[in-house]
């Protein structure tokens, strides 16, 4: 796995996949619930804040070229605290993998195969995730090269099929100033875009390190833009009430579409596409987990960590008792409010501060 190289375009596409693949289903409903017709403003605010966070992460990564956060944290914080930081990044990635797998498999199960127990879906997805991470970052980036255009194609087709159902008044007023709603709506989008913290682990793999900054910023900002387009389209097609009433409004929209009244109920197709695109994101996160864990412990290869993940991910994924618990506690509270802000903002800020102070004192 060491010595793997990806291009700056591949990094941009991977970041977009990481940022939007889960949030396409999750974010629009929540943002519209809080910000109503100003949802686009909320997402733009989140995208701007996420871009600032990306700059912070890039500044930190720029201080230690060729190293991941798991490596330089030990130099900055000392062996034990540094290892703790490395473990934090490993566990955050592992946690996000488990939570994403749980959410996706449960939605698939509830939507198309309610009679089947959850564990076969989780087991299948975990095997796929570990296999993809086992192959390494280059194959994941290549899978991203296929999946990103595929995701855009699916989304564009959905938009085009849904447009005839749209009513312009549903998206009006476009400029409704609702500060509290905008800020509340911006937070979940920011948390989703905050998964860009993976650049702290992926930066050394870039084949042209000089392009890291532009590639990462492009990835973050384009993700925000795609989320804006998606949310506004859903608003235009379904209106504020229906969009915020459903947990996954995009699936509801897909379920109502048809082509020439012959092909209809596309939900299984959309769910499958959602799963395939997410498998790249989850594979990258699993790779980041293994990379960070192996570098923290000092292993030469990431693969032993992945074998451990083979056991840990199903245990974590199957722990929540329901989808509601999974979304409110495991996603909203732990992932959105604790782990992602810490991994994306607080810890990089602390590490950067220490790096600057250490540099200042020679």
């Amino acid at each position, binding site marked *: 796995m060491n010595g793997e190289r990806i291009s700056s375009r591949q990094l941009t596409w991977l970041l977009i996949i990481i940022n939007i693949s889960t949030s396409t289903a999750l974010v629009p409903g929540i943002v519209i619930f809080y910000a109503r017709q100003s949802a686009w403003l909320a997402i733009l605010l989140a995208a701007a804040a996420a871009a600032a966070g990306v700059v912070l992460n890039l500044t930190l990564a720029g201080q230690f070229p060729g190293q991941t956060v798991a490596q330089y944290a030990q130099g900055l914080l000392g062996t034990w605290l540094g290892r703790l930081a490395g473990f934090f990044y490993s566990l955050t990635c592992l946690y996000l993998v488990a939570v994403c797998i749980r959410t996706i498999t449960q939605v698939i199960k509830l939507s198309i195969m309610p009679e089947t127990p959850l564990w076969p*879906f989780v087991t299948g997805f975990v095997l796929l995730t570990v296999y993809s991470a086992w192959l390494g970052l280059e194959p994941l980036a*290549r899978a991203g090269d296929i999946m990103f255009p595929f995701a855009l194609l699916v989304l564009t087709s959905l938009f085009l099929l849904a447009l005839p159902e749209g009513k312009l008044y549903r998206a009006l007023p476009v400029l409704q100033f609702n500060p509290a709603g905008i800020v509340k709506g911006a937070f979940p989008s920011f948390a989703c875009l905050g998964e860009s913290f993976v650049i702290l682990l992926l930066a050394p793999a870039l084949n042209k390190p000089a392009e890291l900054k532009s590639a990462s910023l492009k990835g973050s900002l384009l993700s925000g833009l795609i989320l804006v387009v998606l949310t506004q389209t859903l608003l235009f097609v379904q209106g504020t009430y229906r969009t915020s009433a459903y947990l996954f409004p995009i699936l509801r929209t897909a379920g109502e579409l048809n082509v020439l009244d012959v092909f209809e109920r596309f939900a299984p197709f959309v769910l499958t596409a959602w799963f395939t695109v997410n498998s790249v994101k989850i594979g990258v996160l699993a790779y980041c987990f293994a990379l960070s864990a192996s570098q923290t412990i000092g292993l030469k290869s990431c693969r032993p960590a992945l074998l451990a993940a083979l056991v840990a991910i199903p245990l974590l994924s199957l722990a929540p008792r329901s989808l509601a618990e999974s979304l409110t506690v495991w996603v909203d509270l732990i992932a959105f409010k604790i782990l992602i802000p810490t991994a994306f903002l607080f810890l990089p800020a602390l590490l950067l501060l220490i790096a600057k102070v250490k540099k200042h004192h020679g």
Partner: protein
Amino acid sequence: MVKALFQKLFPRNNSGRKQVLGSKQKSDRPIPASIEQAANEVQSVMGNSADLMVHRFQAFAGKSECAVVYLKSFTDIEELNKSVLAPLQRFTSLPKDMESLGKILPQAGTRVIASIQALSKAIAWGDTVLLVSGFKSGLEIPLKKYQQRPVEEPDNEKIVRGPRDGFVESIWSNAGLLRQRIKNPDFRLEVLTLGTRTSVEVGIVYVEGIANRQIVSEVRQRLERIEVDRLLSSGYVGEFTTDSPWSPFPTSQFTERPDHVTAALLDGRIGILIDGTPIVTIVPVVFWDFLKSPDDYIESPYFATLVRLIRLLAHLVTLLLPGAYVAVTTFHLEMLPQTLAMIIAGARTRTPFPVAIEMLTMELTVEILREAGLRMPGSFGQTMSIVGALVIGEASVTAGLIEPIIVVIVAFTTLASFIVPGYNAAIAIRLLRFPLVLLSAAMGIFGLALGAMFYLYHLVSLRSFGVPYFAPVAPLFLKDMGDTFIRLPWYLQSRRPTYYRAEDEIREGRDNRPGPEKES
């Protein structure tokens, strides 16, 4: 200590391995001056083989006793008489050594050999060895004669328009067919001898200045590394040189067409010729190469593009359609238009087995039919069609064992699997559709997508001699997409594919746009 014990229990001794593989080490004695003794020793080494001939005669005006040793089964006797025995009768004085004799004999490619081992090896290779009494060496004269079939169009790779020649079993004839097309001093042919028992000549062909030197060197190294007693076909070389020995997907391409190999060489790829087989291996290869046919470059770009897209669709149909049908009919019937759903539901009520069992049974039956068709003598071909179509298809539906739609799906899938020009790539797809049917039966469309994603990750992780297997799609090389899914006109394809890392990327001039001369 544990390591020492392990080594004691499982010794890894390379020399020991070589002894198993290589023919027993024979004593490398010099050729004796006496013809009688030399002939006896060769006969002893070759176990008095029935086709081993020792022809003794007087030469140099009766001054010296000579002998030619050769294999009757492998030698051009007419040429031996004409270019060796007759001139020897005409010479009056005995040359001072074998080398001088080689220079005056009207036969190219002679070589002096000094040991019994070299002598027996030369004879085993089909060469004739001349011995002269009093000389402690022999003269190896290349007079081998192959039984060779004429150059004809390969049955397995027919095209509508284009050249009609195909490779034959001789490496030299095949090299000649390539030289006929690439009349350029940069054409290179390197020959290695592989297979410790079979001693097969394996040729590496490429165009210097186009093929990437590192890839050429990698091919050479991988071939030189092969240590095996036999090398009987291109499949052996493919398996010994592949990047991923456990992958079902082929990482080298096989062809019998010289025009195909020529095009590959001019793209910067490398051909591997093997004596005794008409199949030439081309490396490196990307997945999309299997969807291309030499026909694509002969027909118009529009038609070539349409056919390529149909081939890709057929590839996907072969892989996914049986699984998709099982998934939809078992779990997601609501996805289908109501009329179709009713037809399927009606058909399902008349059959006793789950749809997955029916599908697997029918797919297996078709595979059996296909294999039987291959092995069956030609005159039984029609019987096979009748058995396949009527007895197995019609009768099983009438008996209520199989629903008719499954027969339609399986027939369509089988047909689609034949469209892909790369036979070995189609085999991989045929194999891999079975796990997809099982996954679809267990987890519906999620299972199908799960299996497809496993294949996709595997495919994008493969490399062929360092070249990413899924290029130019993943990693994406936009510049090379003009000859992947679509086929742009030739004048727009001015560069060789970048993923083969050719030394010289440019293949045509800039001003190649066809059309009448512009008026000034």
